[in-house]
């Protein structure tokens, strides 16, 4: 049975007849949708990571031993394990200063998790009584009590049985798991000072000596400080510098500010890149469509003679461009999804900044936005031509070039 030649059927035949042009234009739109979806997903993940870092930093200042500022920053941002110590007396001296609202100490240790591999895990000893930075982020309680030898694990730490983690041939119960932040703290394990002492002893028995002359009784790795409302942070920094030597002070707002600036540059660059790409894609499609339309004048004139209305001719062109941009959009976003989702941890590690993937609703919104933009590019590029092509007299067009 004969079938009617609708504009969309005709456009499909046209695309099949010119496979090189079809594939080339589809690739151009694919690259655009890849850049739009992949780039915006990475940008938003970085923004979320910064948000997580800001929210997670309950402390205004972190005091560390002199020369270990970069180690502390790497630990917080990328989870690179390290340990460094200074005398516990420094925390007592700091307590005497004015302008401190909250103060808590931490002790760092690194250990190999028996369930995994030969890469150490960062263990952070906290004082549950004074801690104000870790406890608010407990996502789910698994069981046990941190005061009684249990551990709190970051969101990236995987447990064999969801209840225990093995260090130095001993299974430690896990009390809770922290919410995901996209920072290095997701890869850390937190313990009370009492548990840290036990871990430290076991490490020593295994022949691991961290730093000579240090132990959890008399040493600490960092002091976290929350400044009193109304008391200037800079003023407190000056007070600390005047009262003691051998320490380095990290201003968390300064740390966040520097990340925010580099992230701002990245996002501005991405926006510029995406807009440039969008314009280039529109230009390429417009040029190609107009070039092919010129050589297809007779084809359209013939269709007109066969009784096709001007609207139908415009519809053929629009359907062709819609097919190209639709295919390109789906392929580009598909490839972006196949790279960004499975490799998100690798991408985060390579960038070296806090990275937190957006929620599924956000991902769906981004996907829809990228697809709509990519799909709209083709018809936008051919719309003017579709109107223009219908203008000339059919007879004159048909006789052109004779």
């Amino acid at each position, binding site marked *: 049975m004969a079938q009617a030649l609708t504009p969309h059927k005709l456009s499909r035949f046209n695309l099949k007849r010119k496979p090189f042009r079809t594939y080339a234009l589809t690739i151009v739109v694919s690259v655009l949708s890849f850049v739009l979806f992949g780039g915006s997903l990475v940008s938003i993940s970085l923004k979320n990571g910064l948000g997580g870092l800001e929210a997670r930093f309950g402390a205004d200042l972190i005091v560390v031993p002199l020369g270990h500022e970069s180690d502390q920053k790497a630990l917080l941002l990328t*989870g690179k394990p390290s340990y460094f110590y200074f005398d516990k007396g420094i925390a007592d001296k700091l307590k005497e200063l004015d302008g401190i609202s909250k103060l808590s100490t931490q002790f760092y240790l690194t250990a*190999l*998790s028996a*369930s*995994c*591999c*030969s*890469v150490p*895990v960062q263990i952070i000893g906290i004082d549950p009584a004074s801690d104000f930075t870790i406890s608010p982020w407990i996502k789910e309680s698994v069981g046990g009590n941190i005061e009684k030898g249990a551990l709190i694990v970051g969101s*990236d*730490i*995987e447990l*064999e049985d969801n209840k225990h983690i093995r260090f130095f041939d001993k299974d430690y119960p896990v009390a809770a798991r922290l919410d995901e932040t996209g920072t290095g703290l997701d*890869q850390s394990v937190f313990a009370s000072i009492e548990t840290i002492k036990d871990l430290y002893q076991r490490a020593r028995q295994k022949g691991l000596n961290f730093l000579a002359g240090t132990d959890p009784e008399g040493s600490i790795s960092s002091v976290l400080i929350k400044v009193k409302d109304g008391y200037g942070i800079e003023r407190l920094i000056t007070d600390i510098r005047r009262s003691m030597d051998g320490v380095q002070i990290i201003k968390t707002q300064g740390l966040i500010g520097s990340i925010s600036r580099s992230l701002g540059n990245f996002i501005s660059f991405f926006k510029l890149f995406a807009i440039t790409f969008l314009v280039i894609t529109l230009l390429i499609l417009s040029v190609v469509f107009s070039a092919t339309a010129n050589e297809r004048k007779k084809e359209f004139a013939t269709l007109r003679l066969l009784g096709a209305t001007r609207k139908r001719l415009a519809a053929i062109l629009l359907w062709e461009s819609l097919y190209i941009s639709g295919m390109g959009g789906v392929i580009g976003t598909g490839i972006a999804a*196949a790279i960004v989702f*499975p*490799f998100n*941890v*690798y991408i985060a*590690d390579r960038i070296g900044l806090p990275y937190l993937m957006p929620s599924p609703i956000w991902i769906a919104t981004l996907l829809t936005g990228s697809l709509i933009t990519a799909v709209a590019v083709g018809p936008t590029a051919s719309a003017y031509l579709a109107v223009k092509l219908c203008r000339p007299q059919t007879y004159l067009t048909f006789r052109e070039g004779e």
Partner: protein
Amino acid sequence: MKSKFLSGIVFIAAGLLLATGPYLLFPVCKGGMMVMRCHNTAKAELILGILIIAVGALTLITKSKKIRLWLNAATGLLAVLAILFPNAITGVCSKVHMSCRSLTLPSIAIISILLVFFTAVNTLYLFKQGNKGEIRDGTGIDPT
């Protein structure tokens, strides 16, 4: 004929990636004091990759469509095994940020899934082609 060369080359390329990738392109974790799971996975992928390369070479030299159909199915099964080894059989390290987990595992998964998809489409194609060349008593006619 085109399908024969295409599938042969795709199998050899995928086999090469699976065999050498875990050591060169998307390496597993560096060796330390401990023998890690991912090292066993890399060895398994090396063997599977070599087998896929061998099947690819056989595909290139085989004329019979029926044998190519079986070679194709075998590659599909090897690709499924390539997915299963890092995910269920030998496994990879449990730390999310380890190289084997963040890079090797997704790379192997993507290559293997694409290979499974390719072999599925190719098997269907070869099966249809085989049916086209079959006469009533079930004797196959090889149009090549």
